[in-house]
């Protein structure tokens, strides 16, 4: 019977989900800074200044940013470009019709993007975003002039290119199963950006952490509470165990 139990338990945790592979290179591991308020605030600043022009975060209210240590006045003074009141949700400044003309489709809403892009096999949604935002390269064959290694043929241009500068991917030709294949080896900086590569990675790390936090603002709260809940239940279980034993000790 033990065997059966083990099989059942194993069944519940079986291997990673095979969700659709979007193509592109392997994902880098994103730093998790969702507990670092300074990083989240910096991420929020980058998000509002760069992303919110075209993307919305239609389920996220500006005043929820109080959770990452900002005051209502700070939000009003520094971040409220696309709304009038702090109780409003984050709308994009772009007109959806124009967006469709420019990019061939409406830029997706970003509220829960970090959750929806997770893939059991490849990594978390944050890993994907961290890779995606760091692998743009100029490509004249595309309408926007940009392409991406994590999301081939993406419709979005490299919005942060001034920060990162222009880079070109370097490929190595290898012999694979009798035919030649191009394997991505690294990057070659064509023109410098206003940030060093380390600063850029740092900034993207902050932005991605912000996106991850925004996708589930309660994510760190629930872990903190969960520890207490489990501690309480352990004590309860202990008492319940002794109570049970006390009732059953005389049953023969």
């Amino acid at each position, binding site marked *: 019977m033990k065997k059966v139990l083990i099989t059942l338990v194993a069944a519940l945790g079986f291997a990673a989900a095979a969700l659709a592979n979007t193509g592109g290179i392997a994902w880098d591991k994103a730093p998790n800074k969702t507990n670092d308020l300074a990083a989240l605030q910096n991420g929020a600043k980058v998000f509002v200044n760069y992303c919110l022009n075209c993307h919305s975060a*239609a389920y996220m209210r500006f005043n929820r940013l109080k959770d990452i240590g900002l005051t209502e006045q700070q939000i009003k003074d520094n971040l409220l470009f696309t709304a009038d009141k702090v109780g409003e949700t984050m709308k994009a400044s772009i007109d959806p019709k124009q967006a469709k003309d420019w990019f061939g489709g409406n830029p997706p809403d970003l509220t829960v993007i970090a959750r929806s892009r997770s893939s059991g096999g490849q990594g978390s949604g944050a890993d994907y975003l961290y890779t995606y935002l760091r692998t743009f390269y100029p490509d004249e064959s595309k309408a926007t002039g940009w392409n991406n290694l994590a999301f081939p043929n993406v419709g979005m241009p490299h919005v942060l290119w001034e920060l990162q500068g222009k880079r070109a991917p370097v490929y190595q030709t290898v012999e694979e199963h009798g035919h030649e294949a191009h394997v991505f080896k690294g990057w070659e900086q064509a023109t410098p950006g206003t940030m060093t590569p380390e600063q850029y990675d740092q900034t993207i790390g902050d932005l991605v952490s912000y996106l991850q936090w925004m996708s589930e603002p309660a994510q760190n709260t629930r872990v903190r509470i969960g520890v207490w809940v489990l501690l309480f239940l352990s004590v309860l279980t202990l008492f319940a165990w002794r109570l049970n034993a006390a009732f059953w000790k005389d049953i023969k």
Partner: protein
Amino acid sequence: MAVFKEISPNASAGAKLGNWFENRFPTAFDAYRVHMSEYYAPKNFNIWYIFGALAMLVLVIQIVTGIFLVMHYKPDAALAFGSVEYIMRDVPWGWLIRYMHSTGASAFFIVVYLHMFRGLMYGSYRKPRELVWIFGCAIFLCLMAEAFMGYLLPWGQMSYWGAQVIVNLFAAVPFVGPDLALLIRGDYVVGDATLNRFFSFHVIAVPLVLLGLVMAHLLALHDVGSNNPDGVEIKGPNAPRDAQGHPLDGIPFHPYYTVHDIFMVSMFLMVFTAIIFFAPEFGGYFLEYNNFIPADPLKTPLHIAPVWYFTPYYSMLRAITGEMMYALMACVLAGAAFGIFKAKLPAFLKPVVAVAAIAVVAMMLSIDAKFWGVVVMGGAVVILFFLPWLDYSPVKSIRYRPDWHKYMYGVFVVNFVVLAYLGVQPPSAIGERVSQVGTLFYFGFFILMPWWSRVGASKPVPSRVNFVAH
């Protein structure tokens, strides 16, 4: 009217209050005695007997969290996705309520599958408990309907396309199919009308039926008495009883099994809350990643998979290809040939069997395999209802059955898990073959049970239950 009970004026205030109520509502007091303090349950229950109580607990969790979710949720195609995110971020403790409900759905199926397997192992469906089993199977069906319709409500991509795929299956029914699918959807595609009716069914209709069936399941169980791991009837005519007529192998449910249940419930809650607080998505199995993308009728996801608890049946559906139909036809013909040449059927029935078999094969040839996939998927659940009349083993419990029966059950479980696994995977040639073999085994296990359950020497069943003091 029941006899009015007098109580001594010297009795305690509590006793007097109890007496006052008992004289005015004796039914409640009788029910307490019949179902709790004087319900004698076998004292040799093992851990497998906790899952019924856990299923009740999860049902209560689902109802209570559901009530709070409905306060904030909007059953409207334009607002549904946003209202769930509103619950997740702006409603105080909304995330907790929502995770309890979403984790509760999966937990419900885990405990119910284990509860059903317990019944299978110890022969809990055998005479006189056939109705208990049938009510249970009906509960399982309701649960599937409840889960399926509830899954549409968050209005994400998986909600939408999962519902689209399943409702389209009904369109495969000959003649009435398209109209039937239209009736279910309320529209030509899954849309606002579908969302509204699924919401109504999910929060009112199905829960009402579910509660009624749970009542029937419990009342019928307490009428015939619980089975136990030894399959010994503790209340049978020859069962030993004490001077008051209580079964010696039984023990009052309250307090003995209530303290048991409190202990096991707190253990269960540790696992349940660990998932809620630390891994509510459960690696994409309890909350699918794609479901965080709002439903888009114009964008079909690359890979549509139902939530894990439906995947064994989904595998069986996908296993029924045009090729597989020939295997099924061969099974039908082999079964008919056996009935005609080998079984001891009355002579007049033999041509009936032959004609029926030919008719079924003709239908199998003329109707699309997709329809038979739906039949197989539904049949996989419906066949459970017949279990009490398929099992011919001379003993109830697996403990006293021939050893090879244990392996048979082991293979059944592994097969079910493999089917579940294949159901979450994208279709593949090898997966298709394996799921076809798995489907044949699943049905063979039940349909051939009248024969295989008799093969092998069973061990002697003791007259008393095995109880080790603890």
